[in-house]
């Protein structure tokens, strides 16, 4: 309903404004607000889904930032270090001996572990502890890798749970972010002084 628009140029513009004002007053105020809110919510949901999917593709096929915790890779990776992992090596089967990899834990699929690859399939590895007198060796079966932490005394790795299937490997660590945050005990204290410290990147040495 409402008046028909008569003029299209500026002279008839005031009639157009009045027509619009009249038309607007037909729809109740809360109805329009609800429509606006629903539109905004759907747009927000759409953007969330789109960026979530892009993030999933990036983490799955390219790489991401990982925070490592635990002492089993000292001195290479300290507790609560930030590292960059890339997933391309896993998809193109370029994982080499000596790489540090992120792997889904064989005993708990919901957690990830970070260890160094000591042997690929077919390699001969030493399965006994360093403190044992008699050394025992075995061959890594096909489709598996042998993982060990750098801190051999304080690491549960393939010496405990055996060779790990290649399909559990999630990515390879390529860069470590060297920060001074480790000097502080708790994170709140460190965050207050974050702007005083610089972030240095160093390439992790892989033999």
């Amino acid at each position, binding site marked *: 309903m409402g008046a028909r628009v008569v003029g299209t140029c500026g002279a008839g513009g005031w009639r157009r404004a009045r027509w619009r004002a009249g038309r607007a007053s037909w729809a109740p105020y809360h109805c329009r607000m609800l429509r606006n809110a629903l539109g905004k919510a759907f747009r927000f949901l759409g953007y969330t889904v789109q960026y979530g999917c*892009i993030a999933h593709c990036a983490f799955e096929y390219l790489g991401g930032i990982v925070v490592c915790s635990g002492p089993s890779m000292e001195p290479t990776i300290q507790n609560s270090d930030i590292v960059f992992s890339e997933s391309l090596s896993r998809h193109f089967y370029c994982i080499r001996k000596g790489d540090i990899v992120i792997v*889904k834990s064989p005993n*708990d699929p919901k957690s990830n572990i970070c260890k160094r690859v000591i042997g690929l399939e077919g390699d001969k590895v030493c399965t006994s502890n360093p403190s044992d007198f008699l050394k025992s060796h075995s061959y890594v079966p*096909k489709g598996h890798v042998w993982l060990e932490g750098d801190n051999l005394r304080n690491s549960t790795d393939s010496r405990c749970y055996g060779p790990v*299937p290649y*399909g*559990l490997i999630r990515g390879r660590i390529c860069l470590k972010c060297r920060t001074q945050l480790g000097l502080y005990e708790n994170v709140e204290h460190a965050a207050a002084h974050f702007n005083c410290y610089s972030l240095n990147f160093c390439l992790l040495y892989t033999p």
Partner: protein
Amino acid sequence: MAQAQGLGRRYIKAFFKGFFVAVPVTVTFLDRVACVARVEGASMQPSLNPGGREASDVVLLNHWSIRNYDVQRGDIVSLVSSVSFWRSIPFATYTWCLNVVCLFLLRSPRNPEQKIIKRVIALEGDIIKTIGYKKKYVKVPHGHIWVEGDHHGHSFDSNAFGPVSLGLLHARATHILWPPQRWQKLQPMLPPERKPLHREQE
């Protein structure tokens, strides 16, 4: 001339906009929600592929239902194979019908990431009697499952390579989509002679 250039630029912009929306959403859907795959091999007969090589079944694989790794005994699941082999015709493998094309084409033929489709027989903590494994009785370790094909003797399963880590779980096969006369929902069914001797969890 300028109008045609503007139109071309608009099309290119629209193409890239669509590309960066459609491709990640599709890839995420196929990786996280569901996908479709064709079953090859005879190791799951008679449940899957009863017709042999002439009529391969096409199954719907549901990733979403196993996002928390909760499987039941008797489910048909697909796993990432822990043994790499190039030609695995005698055993049940399956090829992708819809896949991320570039990653699949660039996969090295030396070590393709094979997926195998088997039935879950036992969960962690169960003690079962094996058929042809190096130990006669096996207690399934924590975080692992025991899978077997329905066609014993023609199946490359846990009786050959032992318990499988739950992290290698890929999807659960929920429906048979093709051929149309075999449309059905796959129910979890555990053969009575393969029940575990002692169940940890009820």
